């Protein structure tokens, strides 16, 4: 049994109280949601905090998935399982179910949260790539109220986010646009492993022309990265295999993978290309199947 260093523990009863505790305890404190990233790191003593503030009691107030005419708002405490099982979310953004099916295992998905995944800011994390692909924005609450940042602003580097001292991520917003679909492709060495590389794609059509398209990659650099060059190249074009191939080539040369036990740099670049191609193809097929 791996045992963590001593720490004190408090259960937050409201968002404001949690923020108040963070304000008082400073960087010796950490919020714990699902705990599936934080607790293993604490047990390995890679992370040592004097205080844990448990926000699981806030799942009632922060566990929502709300569909509005122009956006979907998801509370930071929505669990993986709820994201996987939400029919409304699945219709609007099939990429969520694609990704959630390959995130860890059911035990982790029962506990892990959207907010926890984003705040962990692991460069291999799947939901970060999903949010990047869908051009999500993050609502961060502090003592003085809310501020909203883009995904590019939210992720500052590996394990580093825009959430400051005495702040917490409370909501993620996803803009809704007509005639679009999305998909997620991941290669892993084994079920439940982190991605060797994964690629998310979202495409919106205007007639038979691409109105907009976005690609987000995970595990190929310090951040899950959006690729504006791909969006620019695809916009206004008719979907085709050649186009997906070109997008894949851009993905392969735009990322920064490193060789590790999951794979060689060359292989990861190849996957960035192959998976981008597949995700775009699947997205477009989904639009056509739906129409």
């Amino acid at each position, binding site marked *: 049994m791996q045992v963590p260093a001593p720490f004190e523990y408090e259960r937050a009863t409201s968002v404001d109280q949690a923020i108040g505790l963070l304000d008082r305890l400073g960087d010796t404190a950490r919020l714990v949601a699902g705990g599936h990233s934080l607790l293993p790191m604490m047990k390995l003593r890679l992370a040592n905090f004097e205080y844990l503030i448990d926000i699981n009691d806030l799942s009632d107030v922060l566990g929502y998935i709300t569909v509005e005419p122009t956006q979907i708002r998801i509370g930071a405490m929505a669990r993986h399982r709820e994201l996987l099982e939400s029919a409304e979310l699945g219709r609007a953004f099939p990429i969520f179910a694609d990704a959630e099916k390959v995130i860890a295992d059911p035990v982790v998905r029962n506990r892990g949260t959207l907010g926890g995944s984003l705040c962990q800011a692991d460069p291999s994390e799947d939901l970060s790539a999903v949010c990047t692909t869908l051009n999500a924005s993050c609502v961060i609450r502090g003592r003085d109220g809310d501020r909203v940042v883009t995904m590019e602003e939210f992720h500052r580097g590996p394990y580093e986010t825009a959430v400051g001292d005495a702040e917490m991520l409370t909501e993620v917003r996803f803009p809704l646009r007509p005639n679009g679909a999305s998909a997620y492709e991941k290669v892993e*060495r084994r079920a439940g492993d982190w991605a060797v590389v994964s690629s998310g794609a979202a495409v919106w059509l205007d007639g038979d022309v691409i109105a907009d398209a976005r690609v987000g990659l995970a595990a190929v650099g310090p951040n899950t990265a959006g690729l504006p060059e791909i969006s620019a190249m695809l916009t206004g074009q008719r979907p085709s295999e050649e186009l997906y191939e070109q997008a894949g080539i851009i993905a392969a040369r735009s990322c920064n993978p490193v060789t590790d036990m999951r794979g060689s740099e060359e292989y990861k670049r190849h996957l960035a290309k*192959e998976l981008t191609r597949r995700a775009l193809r699947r997205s477009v097929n989904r639009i056509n199947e739906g129409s």
Partner: protein
Amino acid sequence: MTAVEDRKVTGFEDNDRKPVGHGRMLRKEDPRLIRGKGRFVDDLQLNGMLHLAILRSPMAHGRVVNVDISAAQAHPKVKLVVTGAMLAEKGLAWMPTLSNDVQAVLATDKVRFQGQEVAFVVAEDRYSARDALELIDVEYEQLEPVVDVRRALDPSSPVIRTDLDGKTDNHCFDWQTGDEAATDAVFAAADVIVTEDIVYPRVHPAPMETCGAVADYDAVEGRLTLWSTTQAPHAHRTLYAIVAGLPEHKIRVISPDIGGGFGNKVPIYPGYVCAIVGSLLTGRPVKWVEDRSENLTSTGFARDYIMRGEIAATKDGKILAIRTNVLADHGAFNGTAAPVKYPAGFFGVFTGSYDIEAAYCSMTAVYTNKAPGGVAYACSFRITEAVYLIERLVDCLAYDLKMDSAELRLKNLLRPEQFPYTSKTGWIYDSGNYEPTMREAMRIAGYDELRREQAEKRQRGELMGIGVAFFTEAVGAGPRKDMDILGLGMADGCELRIHPTGKAVVRLSVQSQGQGHETTFAQIVAEEIGIPPADIDVVHGDTDNTPFGLGTYGSRSTPVSGAAAALVARKVREKARIIASGMLEVSVADLDWDKGSFHVKGDLTKSVTIQDIAMKAHGAGDLPDGVEGGLEAQICYNPENLTYPHGAYICVVDVDPGTAQVSVRRFIAVDDCGTRINPMIIEGQIHGGLTDGVGMALMEIIAFDEDGNCLGGSLMDYLIPTALEVPDWETGFTVTPSPHHPIGAKGVGESATVGSPPAVVNAIVDALKPFGVRHADMPLTPSRVWDAMQGNARPPV
């Protein structure tokens, strides 16, 4: 003799059969284990028990300059802190390994691998013990590590084992087998020679339960009780007596329920010794249980063989000779658990299942700055490596000759009339009938149809592979004239006692780690004595309550202890026959045995049951002349030879041409382990071993970075397969009984782990044939498969 049984009976129907003897029945131990009522080492709670934690080296090679324990000693809940220097004062800093080397219990001079034991803390609870480790201040002088096994013998490499007198290099041992000159001559004259560099990377058994112990020393009685995760309680007791200087009769080793062993729990680890020292010094029970990272980084690994294999053949595919040169990485200490005369284990059976003219192997083993071990993970004393080598080489030969790999094997398999067969490296294969086994696997697979499907798919650019492997195992070590572990002969005892009411207790020297001994051994005895398995209690894993023997590893339980159990039951039956003759007032020659009763020849109405006899043996009234009361016996069984199970495996894979991901679509395993005692238990062992094999072939490796840091220190980094990576297993069997085993049984526990890695790798390499791939080393992760598709197949180390 070949038989094929109807396999329709599965699941809970099994229990309805309630065989009095061999047959399919659910496991007696499972009601306890599946309800969470098993009793494992870490479940043990004793009054006043303290907890021990071990400080480990953060680096692979370094000089220990100073160890300051004062802050740890000042921790309010700490009872004891011990360093290597303190152990050295008591003469306990070093201990013998199972290979006649020595290993540091706690480092005194240097640390020699990352994770090596440096100091330990005993505290009131596990958390405090772990916290106090961080208060120990160790000053190291970092030394250059020896990580690359191929450079271990370079004169420029630092010497790891400076503790050994006069040691000036990292050489561990040399070993050879076979006839070099004869082999060279055959190679010189052969039409075709295929050479391939084949690596079996370092892997870890990773049992679900890590290693641990509770030591309880009673200073008044001078008695030590040690509950520990050991596959060999008796052998461990003797070694503790030698190491710690305690009298053997005052030591009791108890191995309770064990959560998987796979050879990981054969060696004696420093942690066990630390727990004993902790209890001796505090006078209180001390518990030590590894965490997962400690298990993966410091305990017995498996394999790590760098092999160059050569196979010589005629141009029409008759295999003539095998030659191999092996570089073996043994880590920092030679902690291999193998019979003394076999430093490379049973690697000598690398000639496999084929009728060849000559064979030769030369091996050099070296020390590196890595954890010690080598023989583990269901390896049958290195037969995993041997079978992998030959089965890859045969496929390389098939590739070069453009022959079908199954056809090439069929052409070269040993023929039934050649048994008993003496191999070119001196192993006497007791029995075998290989072709029917191979044909059965091909039948279940629909081999020809699979090849047709593959050809069609290749036309379309799809990558489908079919891998064939045939193995011969050598298990049941072993004859005491040849085989011992640190001087202890590899025989096993067994004691059977029938109680007055006809219930029985059988006491074994081997120790189950999940193999189902409580069922199988009850069935072996039931078959011989006619008492239902439910009425036979199996006692094992307690040196005070079982006869001496060397324990469970190398698939030896059924070949050795199983034989002992059958023979002791027959001995009791012979005594029962004499008592029955008195009861029925006829001579023993006039009695016939039906399973469970004796009757007078020709008169079924005149009979006595074994239960009647048991009561008579203990009851009032005279017994026949010269017969003592009671109904019990004890024996010690010395096997005459190993047993040689075999099997034919066929694996079907699909490889995604875009991502290089491998999907194992089908796996057909036809095993021949001689007489089958409980088919359900055999199938369970096969399923587990096949899963291991898929894991090794696709994902498992204990790798190190250039500084000697272990890259497989958690189950996030060291991947083991899940149900999602394996197909529904398709099993079949043939039966070729062992001629020398009393019931014709052979071992089976490791067959699937031995036979499946080459089948999976052969299938993947076969799928990659359009890319001109003849060989690619494990683990075949998507990235490594893709490298092979680009013509860049590289060894993993």
